[in-house]
């Protein structure tokens, strides 16, 4: 039986063999692998790109103090971007399942419509949730728009829910019982994380300070965005650092949301604030790429 890390390594190998760069996780908190610059920015423009990376993804509102066997505050995604998407992309994906030991002839696999949309990123795509014996194991998306920009080369995004897949392979009922490495359970590695961050996210995060921080990062981002036009040497302009500020805002929004501090009315407004930053940054990235070309 493969441990969690065996499965991850096999998937990375599989995609490395198909020409993907194996990146490391991004080091700013994100809610999904899609938000990493390796996806959000790289899908823009006309340069082909293939990349795969594991991204720990924080969803403060999904925390359950480590008590729910299937819900996690932070879960691991294996994010694969194939830009442009090859014609046999679904066959390649099915091949990856075979590579981690799933004998598809003995299972039931279905692609069920599930279009992805992120209002905070001004991004959407068309795709499916991939169901294996009734379990959603992957989100598959053909990106159409990102940061409000129609994409030149439609990428395929494959997002594997690693805990789900590994739990499935190991036949455990609780994610915490899954073997991370031989003799080491998922609980040993991550349970404290789940408990403590649930406490912080739901009970202790200082709401006023979070709002202030959101304002600060937003201000930093806006200030940067405003300087690009007059900045003499475009290639030096820190678009990437600007984007980090967007990620900070997005994470603070999620925290405030988990804390119950955002009313439904305010929600729309805050989402728009973050989207404006994301769209602005995507625009600069595209301009910078054009300037360099």
């Amino acid at each position, binding site marked *: 039986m493969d441990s969690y890390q065996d499965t991850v390594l096999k998937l990375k190998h599989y995609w490395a063999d198909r020409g993907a760069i194996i990146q490391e996780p991004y080091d700013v908190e994100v809610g999904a692998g899609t938000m990493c610059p390796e996806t959000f920015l790289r899908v823009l423009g006309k340069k082909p790109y293939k990349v795969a990376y594991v991204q720990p993804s924080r969803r403060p509102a999904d925390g359950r103090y480590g008590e*729910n*066997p*299937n819900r996690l505050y932070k879960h691991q995604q294996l994010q694969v971007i194939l830009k*442009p*998407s090859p*014609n046999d992309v*679904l*066959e390649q994906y*099915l091949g990856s399942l075979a590579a981690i030991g799933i004998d*598809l*002839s*003995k*299972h*039931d*696999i*279905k*692609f*069920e*419509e599930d*279009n992805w949309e992120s209002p905070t990123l001004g991004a959407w*795509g*068309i795709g*499916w949730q991939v169901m*294996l*014996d*009734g*379990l959603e194991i992957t989100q598959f998306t*053909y990106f*159409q728009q990102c940061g409000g920009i*129609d*994409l*030149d*080369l*439609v990428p395929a995004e494959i997002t594997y829910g690693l805990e789900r897949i590994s739990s*499935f392979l190991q036949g455990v*009922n609780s994610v915490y019982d899954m073997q991370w490495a031989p003799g080491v359970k998922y609980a040993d590695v991550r349970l404290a994380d789940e408990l403590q961050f649930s406490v912080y996210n739901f009970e202790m995060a200082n709401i006023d300070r979070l709002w202030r921080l959101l304002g600060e990062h937003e201000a930093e981002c806006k200030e940067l965005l405003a300087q690009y036009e007059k900045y003499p040497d475009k290639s030096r302009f820190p678009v990437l650092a600007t984007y980090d500020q967007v990620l900070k805002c997005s994470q603070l929004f999620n925290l405030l949301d988990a804390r*119950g501090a955002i*009313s*439904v*009315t305010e929600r*729309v407004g805050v989402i728009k604030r973050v989207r404006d930053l994301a769209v602005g940054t995507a625009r600069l990235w595209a301009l910078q790429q054009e300037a360099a070309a």
Partner: protein
Amino acid sequence: MSLDFLLEIGTEEIPHWMIPGALAQLSKLDLLSAAARVDATPRRLVVEASNLPDRTPDRAEIVKGPPVSSGEKAALGFAKKQGVDPSQVKQAGNYYELHKTTPGRLAIDILAESLPAAILALQWPKTMYWTGGKTGPRFIRPIRWIVALLGDQVIPFEIAGVKSGNVTRGHRILGSSSIPVTTANYQSELRKNFVILSSHERRHKIESEASKLDAKIDADLLETLTFITEFPTAIRGNFDSAYLELPAEVLTEVMRHHQKYFAVESAPNRLAPHFVAVMNTSGDPDGLVQSGNEKVLRARFNDARFFWNVDQHKKLIHRGDDLAKVTFQAKLGSYLEKTNRIVELVKELGGNAHAQRAAELCKCDLTTEMVKEFTDLQGIVGGLYAKEQGEPKAVAQAIYEHYQPLSMEDSIPETREGQIVALADKLDTLRGCFSVGLVPTGSKDPFALRRAAQGVVKILVEAKLDYYLDQLATGELREFLTERIQHYFREVRGFKYDEVNAVLKVGISTLKDVEDRLRQIADVRPTPNFEPLAASFKRINNILKQAAFADDHAAVDTALLEPGPEKDLYEEYSSLAASAPLTQVADLRPTVDKYFDKVMVNVDDQNVRRNRLSMLSQMLRKFSTIADFSEIVTSGDQKS
């Protein structure tokens, strides 16, 4: 020679609910007059046809040229323009003419030209591009292969870089990915490769297999499963009977909507601890699919049980304050404010204490974990919790059903309390949204106000509630409701549009009254006197209009009436009560006909003329309390 035709558009998995619409469009494909037979799986849209001609017939025509009198030069010009040798231009009488034969074209060429555009012209609710950038072709999902055959030849064309051919693909896992086919063996080759092309057969397979496993067949789910599988096979799984203590509504919701399983019943309305899943494969020899699905369902049920337990820690009645934090609509405040308005409205509508209590609690389930997870169960969960928490049965039932009717087909709440709370809730939404300018335009109706208005109408009519429309709505909202009233009586109840117009034209008091009047019209409509009388009434209306006669209270001076048809008519209609059944009103017809035959309204004597207009106006008004007959479309109207 007559040829068979096959077109298979091979795609990645198409959303199941879009497939029937696409097939309806494909069935109209222009195939040189041959009838298209269509079918589909999630991965292929297929058109087959027989007896296509191999070419279109030659077409002989005579092209008329200039008159002979215009000279030979003109004839030469004509020949040049037609692209023929001048020797072919003949004289026929006073004109030059040309006998021209346009050769027919090969069917294969015509199809090769027309198919790509026809395929890309299919309308989908949402499309994507995947190649060639944002100006590239759009389709529902990427097209990966195309089979296009006429007889034994490939119809050559290309879409999105995919060239048509004679090679199809089988089931993703069980079939070959490269299968050469002919028009004759196409379906049998697919079957060998675990694809049942016939959606009819797949539906039947699912239904019969699932029924054998005691599934309770749900028609919508059956349709969904038919179009998400290429080779459906039903299997049964089990769950711990301890979960049966959760309400059947919750278990069924999880099984049906989240997992696409059929529920299994041990007796009518009694769930058994089993489910039926439909796989897209031929079997489950090792039981892996069954155990996998069982595990997923267990986790889902665990979640539901967790939500149920957590939710019981705070009774509905204590959740009122939490509603203050849930926004109904930015300009219309929170759900707490909405709740207060609903309660007031229920009181205004004369709802009893149970209805008022239900109104107070009806939105509280929005703050429960259960509804946050299973949003479709809003209302239902509130009703279940109310019952659990010891609320009177009528209160719980009213909460349970207050979102009904959810559609035109859905039934209205069963209890009077439920009807009144449902009415108040919808009416409040409508009034609120209209008051802040959120009025549906065209296809945009984000707050589903049409559905709310339709619900209001359906409840008012079907529960026979006698509220006056004016009491419920004014201004723009009243007009909006009137549109829905028209729609309801026409589309749901099948009254003719002119009957509905005629009845609504004279005003709306209660909907019960509208319904009564419509019934009267519909009953009298087929009788021989009715439509001619309606035509006469229309004539009267026109006469009054032309005379600009607007004195609604003009009295008739009987002394000025001429004996004969005029006096007869006056006496006959005067003797009839205004509330007389319409059949009796219709009996006025011969007298009215005679009147128009013999009596001239617009005479020179202004007193007589005025008196005649007064009489016609009086008669019209008297019998226009049920309907405005001039709105009835009679055979005379259709001719004109």
